Structures are given as structure tokens and as C-alpha cells.
């Protein structure tokens, strides 16, 4: 159907129900204003700050002058007092004797930035000039009354230029992006982006993409050989990182709360209790205690339960094929119960307002092993073998920008008197290949 300009349309996250020409026009206008504002400010800065310095360095005529007087000029700025050096000189241009209070090009133009808060700096400049002595000066050939005693560039002028340039950059990039979107359809943009990314999934009109697009790489999983079976699976989120994260959160939170807590306790000890502050601190202290408990739990899990190794007879997995799994649990505390599962999860990321949310839904679970972990002596790791049969209707592993289908082997252990633990081992599932026997 032909689509005209819609004024209003439904939207959730980045999803729209149709083309948003009005929205695109508004966004383009916003970025155009940003570009114009940046260009305007940049032009003003170039004209007011950079150009006078450049002219003084390149176009002013070198001459000589005699210093008649000198002073530290003062100026009020709100509650502050600002200073600058001023030197009165006399010089002759084309037989005409001229006098001027000057120092650098900013002083000559009476610019606000010629003043600074340091009186000592201004006085030190004056000390370099002696009344009655002759010095070099440079005057403007178009207006000889404009004269300077020093030339050069101020470094901070160039740093100020960065701000409007940043605005211009954002404005120009946004404008180009919107204009491209305006003229190029979503399908063509996707094609161009893919070609630019160099993924070579699309190599021209109608040519097929190689291998398994959207299936994650398997190399990270198959680069570690096993001791009993072909591959040793890498663990998903490392327990060490979880412990480090809990430690950081605990130290950061309790360190901050501790400062205020010490102040409150000191007040009580000194007989001047601040009850408002004490009551205010109570929920923060409780949260700190909770974080300590979380850290202690993580610490117990990491230190008490040793590493779990999971090995697989082949990888990637294919639907309908059978595999052998080897599981080994070492550590000072062998688990009372150990369970190994094959799980499949769908994950979807979406935006709600300004928040980005991720929802995970478990769509398949297969128990591969469930038994008592206390089979051997404490010095010998617990070991077991089991069989994994991939379901024939399994969706392959899938990963796109906002959605994914992930498969993993999950080890869950229970140790009496210790918190339960869980360790995940991601695996990749490729589509069934009728020409390949994976049994």
C-alpha cells in the first residue's frame, strides 16, 4: 500500500509500525541546529580569539618603541578581582608619534580574557620592562594605533575550539545518518552495513552466505582438549569474576557508609548524638550487611567447592546426535548431590522508555545425570560419565543484536551446610547435517 506522511504512530523501543518521516524530519532538524550552532560558535571563536593572534603573528609590522610607563590594571568580576599588565609605549609610524597602553593582542583589543586572577603574574611581566628603555613592538599596518609588545599563541584557545567542533561533529554525523535513512530503505541499509562490516555474508545480488550465519563461533569452545574426552568445555561466567564483583560492591558500599557511620558513632560517644543521621543510616548499614553476606557466600563457594570440569566427545552439537559427557568435581568438599542438565534458553533484549531490559525464557531442559557426589575419598575428585542425546527438533544456537538462543550444560551441586552452587558451560548447536554422522 502507498504510505503517506503519518503524524502519529505507535512505537516500542526502536520498533515502529511504519515509516516515520515526520520523526526523521524532526531528528534531522535537531542535528542541523546542532551543526549550525557549533559552526556559529566556532566562527565566533575563530574571529574573536584565533584571528587576532594570527594577524599579530603574520601581518603586524615589526618596529621599535620606548616604554613610558607601566601598571597593573584591575577589573571587577562578580566578587573577584582580575589583573593584567599594561605598558605605555611611544612609537613613530610614518612620522606620526603614537602612544598606547598595551601588552599583547588581547590587551590591545581590551578582551575580557586578557585579565587573570594572578596579580603576581601581571607584576612579573611588568618587571621585564624598564621605563625609558627601547623595546621591539609590532603594529597593525591597517590601524597603526593597535600595537603589541609580545606575540605568540595561547594554548587554551585551541582547547576551547574543541567544544564547538564536537557539536559540529555530532550534528554532521547525525544529519548524514538521518539523510541516509531518509533516502535509503531498511533493507538496503542492512545490505550496505553488512558489506561495510566485511562479513562477506552477502557477496552480491542473490549469492548465498557461507556456513552458518547467526550461529556463534565454536573456536572458543574447541580450543581446549579434554583428558578423558575430546573437548574440555570452558565455564560460562567465571566464579572468580563473580567473587571480584561482590568484593568490589561490598568494599565500595561499606567504605562509603563507614565514613558516615564513624561520624555518627563518634557523635554518640561524645555525648552529642545525631539521631536523624543515625536513623537515616540504618537501611544503608543493613544493605552493607547484606552485601557482606553475599560476599561470604561467594567466598565459601569459591574456596570450598573446587573446580568442575565438563568434557564432551564432540563439538559443535547437532540435533538428533548422541554424545558422551564426562564430569569431574574436585575440591575439599565433594557434593552430596550433583546434577547435570542440558538447557536451552531464549533471550530477548528490548527497551522500555529509557531502560534496556533483557528477558530470558528457558524452553528446554534435559537431565543428563543426577546422583550422589560422595563416591570416593576426599583426595580423589568425583567423576562420572553420561550420555547426551540432542533432541531432533532442537533450534540451533542463534545470536543477533537483540535476540539469542543459547544452549548450555548446567552443573548444580549441593553440599551439606554449604550454599548450593551452579556452573554453566555454554555449547554451540549447529543445524542437523544429513550427510554427517555425529554419533
Amino acid at each position, binding site marked *: 500500500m*502507498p504510505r503517506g506522511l503519518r503524524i502519529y504512530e505507535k512505537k516500542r523501543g526502536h520498533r515502529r509500525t511504519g515509516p516515520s518521516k515526520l520523526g526523521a524530519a524532526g531528528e534531522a532538524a535537531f542535528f542541523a541546529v546542532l551543526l549550525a550552532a557549533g559552526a556559529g560558535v566556532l566562527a565566533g571563536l575563530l574571529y574573536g580569539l584565533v584571528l587576532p593572534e594570527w594577524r599579530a603573528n603574520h601581518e603586524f609590522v615589526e618596529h621599535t618603541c620606548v616604554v613610558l610607563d607601566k601598571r597593573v590594571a584591575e577589573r571587577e568580576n562578580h566578587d573577584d578581582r582580575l589583573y593584567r599588565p599594561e605598558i605605555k609605549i611611544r612609537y613613530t609610524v610614518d612620522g606620526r608619534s603614537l602612544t598606547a597602553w598595551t601588552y599583547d593582542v588581547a590587551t590591545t583589543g581590551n578582551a575580557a580574557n586578557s585579565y587573570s586572577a594572578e596579580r603576581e603574574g601581571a607584576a612579573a611581566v611588568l618587571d621585564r620592562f624598564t621605563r625609558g628603555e627601547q623595546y621591539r613592538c609590532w603594529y597593525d599596518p591597517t590601524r597603526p594605533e593597535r600595537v603589541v609588545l609580545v606575540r605568540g599563541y595561547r594554548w587554551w584557545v585551541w582547547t576551547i575550539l574543541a567544544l564547538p567542533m564536537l557539536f559540529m561533529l555530532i550534528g554532521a554525523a547525525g544529519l548524514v545518518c538521518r539523510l541516509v535513512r531518509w533516502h535509503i530503505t531498511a533493507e538496503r541499509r542492512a545490505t550496505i552495513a553488512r558489506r561495510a562490516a566485511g562479513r562477506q555474508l552477502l557477496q552480491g545480488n542473490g549469492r548465498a552466505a557461507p556456513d552458518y550465519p547467526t550461529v556463534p563461533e565454536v573456536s572458543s569452545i574447541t580450543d581446549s582438549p579434554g583428558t578423558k574426552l575430546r573437548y574440555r568445555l570452558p565455564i560460562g561466567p567465571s566464579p572468580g569474576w563473580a567473587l571480584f564483583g561482590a568484593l568490589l560492591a561490598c568494599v565500595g558500599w561499606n567504605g562509603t557508609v563507614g565514613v558516615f557511620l564513624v561520624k555518627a558513632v563518634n557523635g554518640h560517644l561524645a555525648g552529642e548524638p545525631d539521631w536523624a543521621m543515625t536513623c537515616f543510616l540504618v537501611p544503608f548499614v543493613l544493605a552493607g550487611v547484606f552485601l557482606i553476606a553475599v560476599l561470604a557466600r561467594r567466598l565459601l563457594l569459591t574456596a570450598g567447592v573446587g573446580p568442575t570440569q565438563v568434557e564432551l566427545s564432540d563439538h559443535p552439537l547437532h540435533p538428533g546426535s548422541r554424545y558422551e559427557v564426562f564430569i569431574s568435581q574436585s575440591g575439599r568438599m565433594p557434593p552430596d548431590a550433583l546434577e547435570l542438565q542440558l538447557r536451552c534458553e*531464549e533471550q530477548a533484549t528490548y527497551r522500555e522508555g529509557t531502560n534496556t531490559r533483557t528477558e530470558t525464557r528457558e524452553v528446554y531442559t534435559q537431565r543428563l545425570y543426577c546422583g550422589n557426589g560422595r563416591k570416593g575419598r576426599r583426595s580423589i575428585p568425583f567423576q562420572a560419565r553420561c550420555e547426551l542425546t540432542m533432541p531432533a527438533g532442537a533450534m540451533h544456537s542463534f545470536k543477533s543484536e537483540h535476540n539469542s538462543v543459547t544452549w548450555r550444560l548446567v552443573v548444580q551441586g549441593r553440599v551439606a551446610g554449604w550454599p548450593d552452587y551452579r556452573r554453566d558451560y555454554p555449547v554451540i548447536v549447529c*543445524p542437523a547435517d544429513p550427510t554427517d554422522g555425529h554419533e
Partner: protein
Amino acid sequence: MSKPAVVIRLDQDRQVYPPGGALAGSFRLRGVRAREVKAVETSVLWYTEGKGEEDMAVHAFWRACAESGDWAAPNRANPFQTTLPQTPLSYDGAILKVRWCVRVRALLHGGREVVGQRGFQLGSLPALEPTPP
């Protein structure tokens, strides 16, 4: 003249196509005059539906411009053909669905456009029955 529309026909007129197999067909524009058309874009693509933001990737793309003489006549059958990839397979999950389609977008003068799409299934995944605990 009838309402502008895109009519897409797949050669084998099937719903399910095997991964790595050929997909061929043609399209016609109905209710559109040849001089109205600026360009026509044909894509074979997949996109996601469900809880998450929509992801989309184009597998095959053709663009025919009237200016460069690529575009002939709206009411004539305009063929397309591609070899389908191995993945992603069409999928009907709980919070995620992967759909495949042929989409034809005719860009008309004056900023108007006519879009039509024909869905198909890449592969055929049987329903996944979770093992009871």
C-alpha cells in the same frame, strides 16, 4: 486503476524451503504505472519477532532503478533467484520467532512506496518437547 499492490509468486509455491536450497520466484506491481516507479528493491531476508527488539538481516538484495534502465514494466513478471543459507532456520519459540520472507519495495516518485512481502519457512523444526524432570 486498482489499488497499488505487490504480487509475489514463488516458483514451487511451497511454504517450506530446505537450507542451502534454491528459492526462485517473480513479482508484479499491480495498480502502478511504469512512469511512477523510481526504483524497485527486492530482498530475501529474515527478521525476528517476539519480546525483543526486531533484528533483521538481508540475505539477498536486488535494486532496479528506472533511471539506469534496470526497471522495465510493473505488470510484467520480474524474476528473482537465490540460494538460501543454512541458518538461521525459521523458529517459533516462546519469546523469540525467526521469520523469513521475500520483500519487494517499490519506491515511487513523490516519496511514496508500495511494499509487499511473502513469507516462507527455512527448514522445518519439529516442536521441541522438554524432557520432564
